[in-house]
């Protein structure tokens, strides 16, 4: 699918998602970008290669790496600039010098994320990976989410187990939770969302090329805020597209991460 774009280069859905992820790190400065999943990883590498050169990326193991090598580069083949064992990662998390993009099995209107369990936590219908670092991440530094399968099952009214903390829950928990809380964006395979509304509920920020706002509404279990002037997700520049296709992801792993 390569629709012709009036405002830039024709691109696939996966490429729109990569651009949307990359833009979450625009202007971030010298902080750690921690992307989970192929599309966010490509977005972070694209951002570092172009408009956010000071970003800090890990090799997925225990080091910070120089530059933004192709997505398939293993830890053995990257040029390393500093050590970053897990224990040091917490120093970064709690210092706030980080913007993570985690995945979400469920996300709700207030920005709560669930990666722990579906159903009753005591006896789950489906055990997921566990809360991981989501509770701490979400109250310490900017946090965004990537949802590759936007549907009424992933965009829910209330998540089953609050792992990453959303706006209402942070507010209820008090200043300890709100001081550094910043759920920045949600990128799905259909569009981009933020919480720039008076009640900090989820808003459509843009829809990807080839997607209608109606389609997003039908795939969402709760009422989204929809601005009158909602825009299409920006198209990549020719240079970005070339970088993505020929350098960062020549094997098109990005297309496996997005089903439609």
């Amino acid at each position, binding site marked *: 699918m390569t629709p012709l774009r009036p405002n830039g280069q024709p691109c696939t859905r996966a490429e729109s998602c990569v651009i949307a992820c990359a833009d979450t790190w625009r202007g971030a400065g010298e902080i750690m970008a921690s992307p989970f999943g192929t599309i966010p990883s490509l977005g972070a590498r694209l951002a570092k290669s172009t408009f956010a050169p000071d970003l800090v990326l890990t090799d997925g*193991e*225990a080091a910070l790496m120089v530059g933004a090598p192709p997505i398939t580069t293993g830890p053995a083949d990257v040029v390393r600039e500093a050590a970053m*064992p897990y224990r040091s990662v*917490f120093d970064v998390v709690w210092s706030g010098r980080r913007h993570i993009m985690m995945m979400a099995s469920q996300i709700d209107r207030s920005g709560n994320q669930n990666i722990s*369990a579906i159903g009753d936590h005591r006896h789950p219908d489906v055990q997921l990976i*566990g809360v991981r*670092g989501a509770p*701490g991440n979400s109250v310490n530094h900017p946090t965004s989410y990537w949802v590759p399968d936007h549907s009424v099952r992933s965009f829910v009214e209330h998540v089953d187990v609050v792992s990453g903390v959303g706006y209402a829950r942070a507010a209820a*928990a008090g200043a300890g*939770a709100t001081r550094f809380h910043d759920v920045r964006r949600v990128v799905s395979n259909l569009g981009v969302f933020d919480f720039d509304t008076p009640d900090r509920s989820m808003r459509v920020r843009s829809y990807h090329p080839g997607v209608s706002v109606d389609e997003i509404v039908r795939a969402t279990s709760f009422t989204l805020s929809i601005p009158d002037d909602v825009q299409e997700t920006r198209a990549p520049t020719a240079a970005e597209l070339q970088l993505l296709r020929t350098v960062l992801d020549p094997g098109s792993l990005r297309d496996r991460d997005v089903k439609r």
Partner: protein
Amino acid sequence: MADKRTTVDDIVAELRSGMTIGIGGWGSRRKPMALIRALCRSDLRDLTLVAYGGPDVGLLCATGKVKKVVCAFVTLDSIALDPHWRAARQEGRVDVMELDEGMFFQGLQAAAWRVPFLPTRAGLGSDVLTVNPDLRLVRSPYGADSPYVDDPSDAHVELVAMPALRLDAAVVHTNRADTAGNGQILGPDPFFDPLFLGAAERRFLTTERIVENGRLTDEGPLSAVVIHRMLTDGVAETPGGAHFTANPPDYGRDESFQKEYAGSAGDPAGWGAFSLRYIDVTEDEYQARVAQRRSS
């Protein structure tokens, strides 16, 4: 100086049913698997495991040794979720104290520093506090008039009081160790292994190779000797003892074996065959079968 050399079987003999046991490593990386296999074969039961969970947790759940797991995740890294853990949870066979990864770190740190808790923002607002109703908040004694408060939102702020995670015993696996119980980690990340030992009453290393005291610098840099002998009570040599988890630079993860392990979940016949071949055997037989599997 004490010679702390021991065996995996002697370590297991020091453990008791109902104990809280910390396990080093992270996910499917540098786990003390020879010790885990010995625990699977033992008569121990009702264990509480404290771990950045991987196949250590999955195997012990699958063999019915576990009452409760304290963790933030249970992953096989290249396979997102350990299916044996998933099955144990969905069938209601184990309890869980699910924590944020950083809270877990602070719990070990509090135990190692002998304080009852450490304050943290991590957990505030999340269901970690609702699914663990015993967790408490603590209010900062420093108000807006204190010289130590530079932002008004920190005045008398409420934080999570992460309790000390005290361990009856801890086991970690290192690349090298010496006879006195110093441990050397030659891979890229020591994870939280020194803290697990610091938080525990009885502290054990398993290792690829034991050298004489003072000779670890022949094996790698001194800065890699992150476990000193005040943190250890016994050290057992178990070549291949982290298999099938990753233990660089000695060996990587055995992905093919891990797939076989994962594939045996949720299938009684498959699990029976796996168990017969790889669990109901001595460590020497296990290593021989792994070598045979690799060559076939």
